[in-house]
């Protein structure tokens, strides 16, 4: 059989169900790729041994009536996994072993999958290049000196390099969609509340949402089906009927109305991105959709709003890391307060500290109204823009990122230029709506570029259908020379 690890998740599941391959054989092929990788640094914890045991157990009495029968899956190291170290990419949690399992990973295991490893990410998911991780930066398989994006950079890198057949990430401001775009893969941020947040290391609770990262749109539908569902342990989980996204997937999008927001055409945007967007419009039109110009007038204020709301929530969420209950503790300090201060100073990296300080400031006495309250008002205006647009259109088409993957170190010393990377993805989180990034072309360097489709709340099926139609017409293929397997 041709290399199984290169196949889509959907194909693999079919082969398992037809008993044409065993889970052990499948798992071995991914373990081989993981062992051959010398450079990507996409894994923080390798669970190969345990995965192999699980695969062998599965093969003894295969349960084939599940969505992910006998499938090994590596996940972002932000999902708590019972008995397996969960670091969030931070020194603070370097030795943290959860005694419980996150709802999302549990849902995957209930569908027949098992854990292959824990994937690198920006520290506490704060970053757009995977350069803030305490466990070192991750490389993008598309070219040796490029970043995979972030914060789910390890997830995107491992997926694109065939080290896992599918993966999951979290998206607070673009952390699934931007790395998907940088690595030529598919990434979906679901509607806020569709996937449970319980057991995910918290960054900004009103923005955080888990979602699938996959090789194809069909895989994405399958994974979302396995992940989504009501969870009483998450107070913001939406109680609704489960949907069969993969079964109901169709490329028939005739008559759908697609909005093109003029505010997403930003100054200095590379010509290739513009061309990509035009091509996307043309494909949708050819598929029978109607293209409608719309305005999302407060788009330029989304990023400044995000950099108040997200750090504010982070400063509150990360107050729990005090060196007492779990995590790192500094040995320096003469009293309790100094122990706290040194623990947090030594345990957190620079970007995380920067954001805690910003968040603390915008919530502090005398500044709350000027910053935090103001931002929550603008957030409402941004949400209103989307609500009004969705009275006229079914979905919105934009580029996923303003550039292709950049070089390591290129933006590291300039926080604002790093933050600008999320300019097209952040508004979606602020409004709590779903969006998907799909590979749609390449730039002059042959680096992949993504298109983003944004949908109405809980309208994931339609969003997947449109993405499916575009994917079929674009027929994006990526062939990588596997340079990361060389030792020299």
């Amino acid at each position: 059989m041709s290399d199984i690890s290169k196949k889509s998740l959907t194909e693999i599941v079919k082969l398992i169900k037809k008993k044409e391959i065993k889970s052990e054989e499948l798992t071995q092929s991914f373990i081989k790729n993981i062992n051959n990788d010398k450079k990507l640094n996409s894994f923080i914890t390798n669970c190969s041994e345990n995965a192999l045991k699980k695969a062998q157990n599965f093969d003894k009495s295969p349960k084939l009536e599940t969505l992910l029968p006998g499938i090994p899956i590596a996940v972002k190291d932000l999902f708590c996994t019972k008995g397996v170290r969960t670091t969030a990419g931070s020194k603070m949690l370097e030795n943290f072993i959860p005694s419980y399992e996150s709802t999302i990973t549990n849902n995957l295991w209930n569908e027949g999958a098992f854990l292959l490893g824990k994937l690198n990410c920006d520290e506490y998911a704060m970053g757009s290049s995977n350069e803030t991780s305490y466990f070192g930066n991750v490389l993008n398989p598309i070219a040796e000196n490029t970043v995979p994006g972030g914060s789910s950079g390890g997830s995107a890198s491992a997926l694109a390099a065939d080290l896992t057949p599918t993966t999951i990430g979290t998206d607070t401001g673009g952390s699934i969609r931007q790395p998907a775009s940088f690595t030529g893969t598919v990434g979906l941020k679901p509607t806020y509340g569709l996937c449970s947040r319980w057991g995910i290391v918290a960054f900004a609770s009103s923005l955080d949402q888990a979602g699938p990262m996959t090789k194809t749109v069909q895989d994405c539908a399958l994974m979302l089906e396995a992940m989504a569902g009501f969870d009483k342990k998450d107070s913001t989980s939406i109680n609704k009927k489960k949907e069969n996204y993969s079964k109901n997937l169709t490329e028939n999008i005739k008559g759908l109305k697609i909005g093109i927001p003029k505010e997403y055409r930003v100054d200095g945007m590379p010509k290739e991105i513009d061309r990509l967007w035009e091509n996307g419009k043309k494909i949708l039109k050819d598929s029978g959709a109607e293209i409608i110009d719309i305005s999302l007038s407060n788009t330029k204020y989304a990023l400044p709003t995000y950099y108040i709301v997200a750090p504010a929530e982070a400063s509150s969420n990360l107050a729990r890391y005090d060196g007492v209950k779990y995590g790192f503790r500094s040995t320096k300090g003469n009293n309790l307060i100094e122990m706290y201060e040194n623990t947090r100073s030594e345990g957190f990296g620079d970007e995380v500290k920067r954001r805690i300080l910003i968040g603390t400031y915008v919530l502090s006495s005398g500044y709350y109204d000027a910053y935090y309250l103001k931002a929550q008002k603008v957030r409402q205006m941004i949400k209103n823009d989307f609500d009004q647009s969705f009275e006229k259109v079914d979905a919105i088409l934009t580029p996923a990122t303003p550039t292709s993957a950049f070089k390591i170190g290129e933006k590291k010393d300039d926080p604002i230029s790093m933050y600008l990377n999320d300019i097209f993805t952040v508004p979606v989180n602020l409004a709590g709506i779903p969006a998907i990034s799909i590979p749609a072309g390449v730039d002059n360097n042959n680096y992949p570029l993504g298109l983003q489709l944004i949908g109405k709340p809980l309208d994931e099926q339609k969003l997947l259908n449109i993405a499916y139609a575009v994917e079929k017409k674009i027929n994006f293929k990526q062939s990588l020379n596997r340079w990361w397997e060389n030792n020299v």
Partner: protein
Amino acid sequence: MSIDKDKIKHISKLARISVDEEKIDDLIKDLSSIFNFIEQLNELNTDKVEPLSSILNLPLRSRKDEINDGKIRDKILENSPQKNEEFFVVPKVIE
């Protein structure tokens, strides 16, 4: 708004993060440029806008205040950096 050394010291005290003296200048530079960026919001008139309070358009669910687990002391203490058999241990607070 201008960010100076005193302000950095004040915020870091509130956030319980000690900041090295030699890193303060870099922090002033970074935070100043970030605040400069976020202060774009002042261009917008928001007098008649209600602040967003929930993204779901739904009220939060309430539940009965019932005990649903317990007797997991050892599990809770498992990850503590310093403990004795029953308690988290911290530097002495009361003389």
